[in-house]
């Protein structure tokens, strides 16, 4: 499982949450690193922040889909309006979580994504 966010605190938070749920978690501080990790390690799920330097979460998702990767993607967005989510789903994300989120929000999104698959 991969988590990517340029905000270190949030990245750690997501990682702790996922570890509590029993997953192994890889982390990336930006879009480029996230893309490389997905390619190299093929995680079961990628949780990507939308706002990251060099490559946004949406761009990473788009690139993965273009490359034929089927890894499920959940986007984290700090935008109040649903625009990011819509663009993200269109790019190939399976779900999204709006910041700030509770444990339940994240758990729910992860379980749903894993259950549905791609």
């Amino acid at each position: 499982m991969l988590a990517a966010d340029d905000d270190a605190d949030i990245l750690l938070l997501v990682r702790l949450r996922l570890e509590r749920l029993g997953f192994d978690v890889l982390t990336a501080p930006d879009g480029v690193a996230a893309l490389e990790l997905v390619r190299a390690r093929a995680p079961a799920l990628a949780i990507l922040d939308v706002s990251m330097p060099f490559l946004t979460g949406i761009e990473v998702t788009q690139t993965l889909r273009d490359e034929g990767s089927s890894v499920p993607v959940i986007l984290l967005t700090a935008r109040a309006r649903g625009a990011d989510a819509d663009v993200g789903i269109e790019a190939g994300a399976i779900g999204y979580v709006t910041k700030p989120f509770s444990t339940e929000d994240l758990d729910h999104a992860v379980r749903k994504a894993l259950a549905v698959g791609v």
Partner: protein
Amino acid sequence: MSEATVLRASIAVGVAAIVAYSLHAGGALGAGLSSGIPLGAAAAMTVGARRLGGRRALPWLAFAGGTAFLAGGDTIRNVRDLLGWATPTPSVADWVDLCGYPLLVIGFVLLVQGLDRGRNRAVLIDSAIVTLALATAVWGPYFQNVRSNGGSAFDTRITLAAYPTWGLLLLALATRFVFSHALRERWAPILLAAVILLLSADLVWAVVPVGSTAGGWVHRAWLLSYGLWGVAALRASTAAAVAKPVRVEEETPGSYRFLLLAVPVMAMPSAVITHLVLGRGLTLVDAAFGASMLVLVLLRFGSTVRGLDVARTNLIERNVALRKSEERFRWLFEDAAVGLATVDGEGRIVDVNEALCGIARTQKAGMVGRPFLDFVFPEDHGVVTEEFVAGLERGRIGPLERRLRVADGTEIWALTGFTVLPEQDVPMVVVNVQDITDRRRMEAELAVRNRELEEADRFKDELLSVVSHDLRTPLTSIMGYLELALEDVNATADERRGFLLVAQRNSERLHRLVDDLLFVSRAQAGHASLDLDVVDLGRIARRVVEAALPTAAAGGVEIVCEVDGVETVVADEHRVLEAVENLVSNGIKFTPPGGRVEVRVEGAGDAVAVRVGDTGSGIDEDDRRRLFDRFFRSTQSEGLPGAGLGLAIVKAIVDTHGGTVTVKSAFGEGSVFEIRFPRAGPGSGAGVRDSVEVAS
């Protein structure tokens, strides 16, 4: 042979015949010629009539018939003469002759009808007056002759009276013919000459004793008359067409017409004198002719006076109406709120009203006589001239918005139009002008205001979006870590403390964001407060770089700081630090691993510059222009945390210190941000709020 040749040949033949007759009047040759000439003339009239064709042929056919009958009468007399028989009165010759006259009369009636359709009382009366005058002066002796044969039988007297009666009718119609403006035709004088000759010859024939030498000349006159008649017919047929019938108005008397009427009036006394001299008494017929003529002259005079009166009244009324109309025009012209000028066909100003003087900022004297183009903006001369010419043709042009240059050289905007005044002797154009400079300025101001409002609206949207984004990030950590600290039962005390510290740090971040937002907002409104002190920018730069070292290292970015000694400015240390921090943090954020961020501080005259250069992706020109808008995010930094508010804060801080901020960048080649603070502090330097110098 051409028509002219035929005509000339015919005339030559006729003249030759008449000359031959003159030389040899007696005998069979003379008799033959005196029959042949009128018959030849009748033939010429028939030819002329055939060539004219249609209704126009009819008078000439009647003339031809009449002439033929007269030729018939003469022939009978000549034959009887040759046979040595006397010709009594009346005889067959008279019956044949008297058949000819009505045809001549009918011919004239048809001719006059064709020429002059406008029945006109004045023309009729004038014709009657002249006829009666001639009759009074000339026909008296004629009828006298008839009476002197009083001893003759009744049928002789009737026959003798018939000639002058038909002659009088012919005279009346010939006069009417003259009054119908027919003499403009080339053939008409010839015809008139023929008629006069015929009537004169008849007269002389009636008064001279039978067998006198004058009798031969009368015959020649008759033959010449027939010849002329034929020539007139041929001329008429070669004329292109009869001129358009003149529409004769109720004749107003001119000097020519007065003369025409004065001469007949003189006929009455002259006739009386003639009678007295010849020792004849005045007859009832003379008196009747004279009286009728006088009545007609009086009638004509009365109608003339009435006509004059009507004309005078009309003239006065027209003058009054014209003056009123002129006054109305003048009143409208002078008092119009719209600027008005009358301009002649050459484009020269003839008159201007008060309103136009006001618009042109000059006096009437400064405009009248000058070309109106003098007041048109020079660049528009060509197009305005074209419009003016088109306006003259079409009658009106406009309204059009045009630039004018008024007397003091000021440029104004005007709504202008041309209207050509109808029924003027020379082209006269009314130009209307409305000053719309204020309206256009207000429109422009309104457009600017509108753009500002749209900008404000966009700003509001950006604010919502940025605030939402930038506040949510720290809030996520605060909520998340507090939840962990509270709910994670397996966590150790140290771990819990760690969670709480993260929450606390993000709370501070949140606080700072709210503070920044407030600062930007206040700076925008012009009342941000600064805590001023002497600040060493070099020290601040070093502090910022040291603090950023771990972040840079984590991102694989090298960061260096170059400071030339101590560079102090009067500033709010906390705010200046924040500005440099924001630039450095952005630099690191936008520089990929392996890149480099340089921070340089150096004196620049009465200011100190801090430059932050990076080897990042660079910024394209459009984005550079809008870079420091409070909440603008460049297309490359889509969603970058803090990037939106960050640069807006830098700008707000620099502005409040009276400094400047510039950026040099090329897309793909990194960027250099430079902020300058005046050494002496806010309010001292040439710093201008809202002026972002953008250089490539």
